[in-house]
């Protein structure tokens, strides 16, 4: 490259001036990190798209070659004064000896100043003698008595302490914080990961501060998921709440696996089973039904169907109906012809975030400090989506590469590795096998995390599109158990669902210890308690139909030509307020209750007493009997309702609008 020739020229000129001095600092690993650590290369400073004050560095100083060029070559090389190193702009600005918009960044006694000065005095080389040709292999961080030490391992086998050049961050500052020097302050119970970054690489170490109080003793049980979960809570000394009562559990299981609450008969059947077999027996029953396909289809579509890519979305439902391995759906994504539509980068990013759980998209614009994915990786992985097999070779279709001078890029897998291509294997097949089992477990971890989120209400890796070092799973061992179960069962979704639904984690109660702890309860974060979830609008409508009319599909309504369940304005709503207005006023409940022979009417016709009617109504709507205070409260209305259809409909409407009906607890 021409720029390298220029460097050589500079070096030879400099060599004359500084011949006697040893080369003492390496720009890549000893100077550039200073700009990152002191914020000079941040987005709101010189790292911004246009730099600051005419001086531009790469964002977070991750492109040392360009930064070296900017410092040593631009501005007639006035940023550096070899005669009087201290007079270099590079040192006068950050010490605010001259005007500097960024203020004083460090003073003359600092390590940064001394290091920059030494580097200039030694001729401002790109590489030092010691690290010539070396590259960074690995980064390690360790915590010794609340002091972090960062060791960089270089390709020449050399280990160096780079603590003074690293940047630190805690994933949970409320648990443990870490300052610029790498000193750790414990703040409160919980788990935190402490991260160190150096020269585009990250490392982390975990810190667990147990909850105070008497040491708890948890039974581990037989279920592998429960064993991993109990061990995690035991380590944290965090006592989980008790299991949910049977009617709450039955309702939860039916909503999750069938998309509706259980009928009174189904509840009776559920309770008739021995307590420790209820989850297994019922999930077996529900997983075999068509309703499971309907309930899970929307989730799978959002993971496996890239919007606007002309794929037949019904394929997902068919695959689910036949219980095909989910890996088949991956293969489908790359059916011939589909790949040529749209921007290959969109496809690469969709595959990255939805199938692998990694947000490589950030690197479309810039390298990101929290991500290990670089622009080069993003580009070369994207190129794979424009590759065809031609004469037994992988050939790149013309591929426009922004900012790269239209030069074609070599397609590669993630992390960058060249493809060993067997003739006869299409790039689609290469991609499929890479995604499902490319020497990593990203696919299984991602799907396991998403299914866990669907069933439990929140994910082990929050922001499921974005697994990264600084976004670790809340319980690593739990995610590992789930991922390996999924993989070992050949990516069988039903088996994974049953695995989770039969665990103790799934069965936990959701009642908070007190009203104050809605948001801040650590039991929620660490899965020692379950969170009650409000129904979504479609879930709610389905539940209403099922309760009032025992009819679970709108299509069936249409087939019958019945106007009963045809919601007035059930076209999609787009805000929470519109959702609740629909619930109140779209007429779904009213028309249902006005239909002859609906379930509510039947209760009041066939009940011998108001007490019985009230009990049956509660069981129908809320899957439980009324409590004493509820009987007292509502018996007068129920009595009236035996002979007055208006009172009956008012009471049923109130129950259907209740917070309890509108929530999966």
């Amino acid at each position, binding site marked *: 490259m021409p720029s390298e020739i220029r460097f050589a020229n500079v070096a030879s000129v400099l060599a004359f001036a500084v011949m006697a001095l040893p080369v003492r600092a390496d720009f890549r690993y000893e100077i550039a990190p200073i700009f990152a650590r002191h914020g000079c290369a941040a987005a709101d400073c010189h790292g911004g798209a246009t730099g600051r004050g005419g001086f531009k560095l790469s964002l977070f100083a991750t492109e040392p070659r360009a930064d070296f060029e900017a410092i040593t070559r631009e501005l007639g090389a006035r940023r550096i004064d070899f005669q009087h190193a201290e007079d270099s702009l590079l040192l006068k600005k950050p010490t605010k000896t001259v005007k500097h918009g960024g203020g004083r960044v460090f003073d003359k006694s600092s390590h940064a100043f001394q290091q920059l000065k030494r580097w200039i005095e030694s001729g401002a080389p790109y590489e030092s003698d010691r690290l010539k040709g070396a590259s960074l292999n690995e980064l390690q961080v360790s915590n010794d008595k609340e002091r972090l030490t960062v060791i960089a391992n270089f390709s020449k086998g050399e280990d160096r302490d780079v603590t003074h050049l690293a940047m630190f961050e805690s994933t949970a500052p409320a648990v443990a914080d870490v300052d610029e020097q790498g000193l750790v302050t414990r703040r409160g119970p919980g788990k935190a990961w402490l991260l160190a970054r150096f020269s585009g690489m990250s490392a982390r170490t975990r810190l667990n501060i147990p909850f105070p109080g008497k040491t708890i003793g948890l039974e581990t049980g037989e279920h592998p998921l429960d064993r991993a979960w109990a061990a995690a809570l035991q380590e944290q000394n965090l006592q989980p709440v008790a299991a949910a009562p049977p009617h709450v559990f039955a309702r939860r299981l039916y909503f999750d696996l069938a998309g509706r609450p259980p009928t009174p008969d189904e509840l009776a059947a559920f309770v008739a089973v021995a307590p420790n077999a209820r989850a297994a027996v019922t999930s077996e029953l529900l997983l075999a039904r068509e309703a499971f396909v309907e309930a899970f289809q929307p989730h799978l579509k959002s993971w496996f169907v890239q919007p606007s890519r002309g794929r037949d979305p019904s394929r997902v439902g068919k695959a689910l109906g036949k219980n095909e391995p989910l890996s088949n759906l991956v293969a489908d994504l790359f059916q011939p012809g589909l790949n040529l539509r749209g921007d290959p980068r969109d496809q690469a*990013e969709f595959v990255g975030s939805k199938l692998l759980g990694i*947000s490589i998209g950030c690197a479309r614009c810039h390298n990101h400090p929290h991500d290990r994915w670089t622009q080069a990786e993003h580009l070369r992985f994207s190129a794979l989506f424009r590759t065809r097999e031609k004469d037994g070779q992988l050939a790149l279709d013309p591929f426009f590469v922004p900012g790269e001078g239209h030069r074609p890029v070599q397609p590669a897998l993630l992390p960058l590795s060249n493809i060993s291509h067997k003739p006869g294997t299409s790039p689609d097949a290469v991609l499929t096998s890479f995604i499902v089992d490319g020497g990593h477990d990203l696919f299984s971890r991602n799907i396991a995390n998403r299914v866990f989120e669907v069933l439990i209400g929140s994910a082990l890796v929050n922001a499921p599109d974005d697994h990264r070092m600084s976004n670790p799973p809340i319980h690593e061992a739990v995610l590992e158990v789930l991922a390996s179960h999924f993989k070992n069962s050949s990516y069988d979704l039903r088996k994974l669902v049953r695995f989770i639904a039969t665990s103790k984690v799934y069965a936990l109660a959701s009642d908070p210890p007190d009203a104050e702890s809605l*948001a801040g309860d650590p039991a*929620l974060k660490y899965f020692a308690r379950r969170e009650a979830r409000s129904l979504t609008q479609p879930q709610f409508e389905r539940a209403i139909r099922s309760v009032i009319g025992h009819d679970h599909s709108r299509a069936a309504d249409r087939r019958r030509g019945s106007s009963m369940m045809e919601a007035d304005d059930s076209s999609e709503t787009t805000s929470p307020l*519109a959702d*609740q207005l629909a619930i109140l006023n779209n007429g779904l409940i009213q028309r249902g209750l006005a239909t002859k022979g609906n379930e509510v009417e039947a209760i009041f016709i066939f009940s011998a007493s108001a007490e019985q009617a009230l009990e049956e109504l509660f069981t129908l709507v809320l899957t439980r009997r009324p409590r004493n205070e509820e009987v007292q409260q*509502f018996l007068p209305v129920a009595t009236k309702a035996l002979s007055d259809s208006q009172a009956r409909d008012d009471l049923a409407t109130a129950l259907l*609008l209740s*917070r309890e009906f509108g929530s999966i607890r």
Partner: protein
Amino acid sequence: MNSPSRRQFIGTSMGALSFLPGLLHAAPLLRGSKKKAFILLWLDGGMSHIDTFDGKPEAPPDIRGPLGSIESATEGVFVSEHFPKIGKLMDRCSLIRSITSPEGNHDRGSHYMLTGRRLTPLLSYPSFGSHLHLDGSGDDRVPPYIAIPDAHVYARQGFLPAMHAPFELGSAPGKPGYRVRNLQPPPQMERAMKLLKAMDQLDGPPRSESEAARDAVLQQAGSLSLNPKLRELFDLKKEDAVTQKRYGNGTIGQSCLLARRLIEGGVRTVLVRDKGWDHHTNILSSLTTGFPPKLPAVDTAVSALHHDLESRGMLEDVVVLVASEFGRTPRINPSGGRDHWSRASSALLFGGGIKKGAVVGKTDARGEEPIEQPVSPADLFYTVLSALGADTDRILTTPSRRPIRVLDEEAVPVRGVLTT
């Protein structure tokens, strides 16, 4: 613990709805808040700049097109011959004629104009109205952001929680059968709501944030639909006949009237979306025929809105923006239409904090690109938020907890538009 977006969600929902118990006996609705309100008239599809605000009477016929232009109250500024009323108002508005953007596709262009950010593959950003929702609503008794009849997908909350989404009416005033979707309660709702209250009280406090949020929004929905005074806000029959007529009979006019009424009732942002501005064929008849024709309808609606706000003493408390995703090709195409043109477009602004009679920027003789003071959609976004007194330094958090600024890094307020 929980993600910030979620805390923000609950914080916003609970804070905004603390008023609810007294709502059924609400005081007369009058805009009492100090925060300025915003009306955006969004001409969806791409308004031809040459045929509206950037007339080129001296350009050759294939550029100036079949529609004439007239000089406005500001010397040298030519507007459509169908904008006589707006033309007269020009000395009381700010006109920007040098908006320029690289986004010539409807979705991406709209995203840039409505959010001040270019669309990225990972994120869509919050729009004007959602920012203002976050910034603080005008009046807690009504939805803070309303879209008539609906919102462009990029006029919504972007990556913010759904709480910040616009309330879309689902129906346009001025059309027969105008009726806000699901606003009218069924007869038994009032009785059922009483029983519901007893039911939920026996249930105790909500079990989770999502239950608490649902409670709050259900209650807001109940109040909105059960309180006749609040429902009347959406009812244009409550306006006198003269006012109704002044705005014009069509949906643009009646929607602008509704926007004024909603703002008066305490709504902070109203988006009026008028579709059908993508005039690839026969621009002459597309703009000047129909029921009512588009250009005269905009002329009538915008001038009535200005007049109405001024005569009610509201002009200083409201910012009005007329804009669309891009301009249209200066040269008339073989089908007599104009195609997408993002290198130049215009926007009209008036109201509180906006200079009167300012004309910013200029396009070349053929209306192809700015030759003076180019303005990016991000700059316009910055300017409008500033005029509204919104917090432009806020850092937002994406669902994956990445910090994002409200404004594009390179945005600057448009010089010469703001009074301060």
